[in-house]
């Protein structure tokens, strides 16, 4: 049996300038430099990226699915945050 597992890294790729980095998947690497190189080879073989973030999976703090209601339902009734909530006179063309 293996003495040590290589840690898991989550990979985020910016597909072109002007866009945010987006999560694309994960991979294993012994160190950060290797994580970047592996991400380049695994996730950008078809010109999918111009920038890579590699984050140790163990460093990510995630909200729990059990808290979904508590965290996200309170936003449901704040309809006034959305522009469509406001009726404008027809004369106002762009706002």
């Amino acid at each position, binding site marked *: 049996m293996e003495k040590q597992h290589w840690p898991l890294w989550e990979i985020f790729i910016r597909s072109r300038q002007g866009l945010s980095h987006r999560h694309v998947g994960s991979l294993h690497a012994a160190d950060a430099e*290797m994580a970047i190189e592996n991400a380049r080879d695994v996730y950008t073989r078809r010109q999918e990226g111009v920038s890579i973030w590699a984050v140790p999976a163990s460093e990510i703090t995630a909200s729990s699915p059990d808290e979904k209601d508590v965290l996200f339902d309170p936003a449901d009734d704040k309809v006034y945050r959305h522009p469509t909530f406001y009726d404008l006179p027809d004369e106002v063309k762009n706002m």
Partner: protein
Amino acid sequence: MNARYEYLLRLGDDALILGQQLGLWTGHGPVLEEDIALTNIGLDQIGQARAWLTMAGRAEEQGRDEDALAFHRTPAEFRNAQLCERPNGHFGDTIVRQFLFDAYAVQLHAALAHSKDADIAAIARKSAKESAYHLRHSSAWMVRLGDGTPESNDKVQASLNVLLPFAGDLFHADAVTDTATSEGWGVNPASLRPAWEATLAETLEAAQLQRPAPAPEQTGGRQGRHTEKLSYLLAEMQVLPRTYPDAKW
């Protein structure tokens, strides 16, 4: 002697033989991610080989294309450095072979990017980005293996001791390279050595590896004198076009 043809063959054959060998790692790497990485480097080498050999075929003016040159020459007609035909061995052997070559290729491509021949300069500029990445990969692995465990240090030190003398071909200057240099389209390989030595020294230090005591260098690849391995390698690589000379694939 057609110096241009000879010179381009050297560039193409180095890349071809390395690409051929790296392809053997596909499916057999030490970890999935590294399998993918070695194949990527192999693909770059095959791509470079195709570009250089196509150009060599044009320089020869006998109507031979990349495949005619790759599949229908004998070992003695190959001009690759002996270093490139050293067997894959274990992962450390492959990494050391690649590192010694990459550290040279980075210098070579940088210099050739200023070639007076626009076509050579264009291929060199494209290859320069690839070889810079290859060196980054192979030197990082030199350090990981050298500075890893006592076992890995022993292994990679042994690989280095065996392979270093084979770097001789890379810097071999002769009438071909003299012509290339004086006409301004090629590089004097001997001039690449100091920068190569500097990369070597820097990486070996970071990797906790010792430079082996100077040993007589193995040369001859540029004149078609090769190790035993090349004939086997070519026999395998060339089997289909040689068996079915009339076939197109």
